[in-house]
């Protein structure tokens, strides 16, 4: 995609542990277009958060990242920590599940936003203050003037998450990574925050990568979605495609496991077996041991390939994968 803002190619992330190296992310390639909301979905341990942290250069020293992460044309893998720090909070920002991860409990919320601005921009404090006030209003904090001096604990969880989003927007980032931003919130508050994100994208054209386990949130907010399983990216498609015609057996199983009123209690579809140990994962497709369609070829990693212009799948059942996996084309599929 020509207007890609973020491009990941063959990204691997390993964590060194006493028991060996955990292959948390394996050969992930994807790209995010300017102005889109891209969802990354999967269950615990699938590597979605690790992938986001790798993008931000926020992984601990025990992690080894290889492959390429290009942001606005610039390679981030191997960039000196100081350069990465300059990018964060400026061109790329992040919103976490727990707002208190990002907020200093002892520091007025307005000043936290203003400080994010002055840390990256050479502006007068009064200018930063005005901008912080405007941002608070932007994210729906009532009476920003009065709230500016409040410590975070005086705010509800929903209001705190609004402040975090305001901070993330402070320097008009090109990309915002939001990791489970509504998971800790009540459902009526969650719907307000989803509204806010939708509105910000509309008004500011902020590109958002949304990481979540919640397929409902994906369906409500995202344009495209990547599905991860045990460190591998198994499918990428538009949101309507994923929900209408999921192609990867894992995506299909995940959607079928969602409770609905139509199914008799007791008859939800389950996925037999367990996620493989990522210290010595089996070769090939990591879903193979639980897959109803498993074949001999599944011990070879299926390349992520285009089934159609905007639907990619990494499964040997797919003609596109088989085509891309021919011995001559040994390299795995390119970015979406």
């Amino acid at each position, binding site marked *: 995609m020509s207007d890609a803002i973020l491009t990941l190619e063959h990204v691997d992330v390993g964590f060194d542990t006493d028991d060996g190296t955990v292959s948390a992310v394996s050969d992930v390639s994807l790209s995010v277009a300017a102005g889109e909301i891209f969802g990354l979905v999967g*269950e*615990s341990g699938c590597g979605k958060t690790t992938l986001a942290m790798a993008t931000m250069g926020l992984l601990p020293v025990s992690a080894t990242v290889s492959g390429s992460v290009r942001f606005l044309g610039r390679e981030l893998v191997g960039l000196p920590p100081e350069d990465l720090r300059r990018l964060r909070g400026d061109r790329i920002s992040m919103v976490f599940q727990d707002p208190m991860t990002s907020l200093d409990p002892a520091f007025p919320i307005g000043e936290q936003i203003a400080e994010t601005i002055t840390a990256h921009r050479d502006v007068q404090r009064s200018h930063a203050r005005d901008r912080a006030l405007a941002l608070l209003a932007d994210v729906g904090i009532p009476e920003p003037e009065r709230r500016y001096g409040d410590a975070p604990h005086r705010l*509800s969880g*929903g*209001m705190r998450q609004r402040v975090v989003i305001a901070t993330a927007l402070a320097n008009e980032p090109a990309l915002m990574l939001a990791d489970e931003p509504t998971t800790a919130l*009540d*459902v*009526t*508050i*969650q*719907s*307000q925050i*989803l*509204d806010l994100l939708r509105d910000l994208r509309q008004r500011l054209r902020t590109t958002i990568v949304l990481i979540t*386990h*919640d*397929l*409902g*949130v*994906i*369906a*409500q907010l995202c344009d495209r979605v990547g599905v991860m399983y045990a460190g591998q990216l198994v499918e990428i498609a538009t*949101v*309507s495609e994923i*929900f209408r015609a999921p192609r990867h057996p894992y995506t299909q*199983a*995940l*959607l079928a*496991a*969602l*409770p*609905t*009123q139509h*199914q*008799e*209690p*007791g*008859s*939800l*579809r*389950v*996925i037999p077996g*367990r996620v493989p140990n990522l210290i010595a994962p089996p070769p090939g497709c990591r879903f193979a041991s639980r897959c109803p369609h498993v074949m001999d070829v599944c011990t070879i990693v299926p390349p992520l390939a285009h089934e159609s212009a905007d639907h990619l799948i990494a499964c040997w059942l797919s003609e596109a994968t088989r085509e891309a996996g021919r011995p001559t084309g040994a390299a795995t599929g390119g970015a979406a």
Partner: protein
Amino acid sequence: MSGQVMVFEEVAPVHPGGPILQVTGLVKHFSTDRGLFGGGAKLHAVDGVDLEIFPGEVLAVVGESGSGKSTLARCILRLIDPTAGRIVFDGQDVLALKGRRLAGFRQQVQPVFQDPFSSIDPRWRVGTSVAEALDAFAIGTKAERRARVLDLLDRVGLDPSLAGRRPHELSGGQRQRVGIAAALAPSPRLIVADEPVSALDVSVQAQVLNLLADLQRDLRLAILFVAHDLAVVEHISHRVAVMYLGKIVETGPTDAVFRDPRHPYTKALLEAIPRPDPDRRMEGSALHGEIPSPIAPPSGCRFRTRCPVAIGRCVTEEPEMTAFGVGHTAACHVARAEQQQDDHHRP
């Protein structure tokens, strides 16, 4: 007033045997810490709740944080003492139970928590945890207890060989199964499950929901299912009670409440569910503002400060429960007025 409104009693009993659990006028207030200069306040966690559960029924209690749903569950389990009200289980006044009779109640009413570690000891082997209630209530001989534990593990879909493992060796879903097996051990008649699947991944959640549904059907268990996830509730429960700031605002058969919600809060809650269906995107959130503090709940109807249809009367007068169908009631002045108008215009 038309004869259709305002009646609890008019609802035909679905279970001629009567409810297994009946809660009437339950109140639980907590005192907040008193500062140096006084000023301790009362937190109205549960403020006058009536509910009934019939044998073999799943009743879901739903609500957001601060609704009082977990406090209600803890009162029913007698983990905390309510400030006022009555709890009757199988004809016995639960709050008056002592000694052996209380032990008998604890045997018949078992908890399942969100975090299985609240009920199973992380240091104990799985088998020991499952056997705990059997040991505590001295049920059966040692050999019988052992056989029962292996049976129970099998019943909840765990390999009996796991009896010798410790919880940290198990996955989250397996641990929740151990919690359920431990709850089933003394053959309870009522399970009080507080967010039993909210910490689980979707695929594991499906397994545990299936298990609960099977057990409920096979053992004719009654389950009080406390949850915030409405999709889960819609799937598993027969009846639902919606709580807001310490009160039940609507209750009824799950189908009726989900298809035809009458209370504006229930409507907003249902609209806010992020449906896994991109063709059904919600346009703007129905509800503004946040739940007021349970220390100073609003006068009249507690929902009025966020209600899109509130009228003057909602400030001054607390709405009573009104019947909208068989077993379907809601406490809302506006919904009630609409209902009366409909009745009036009916030929």
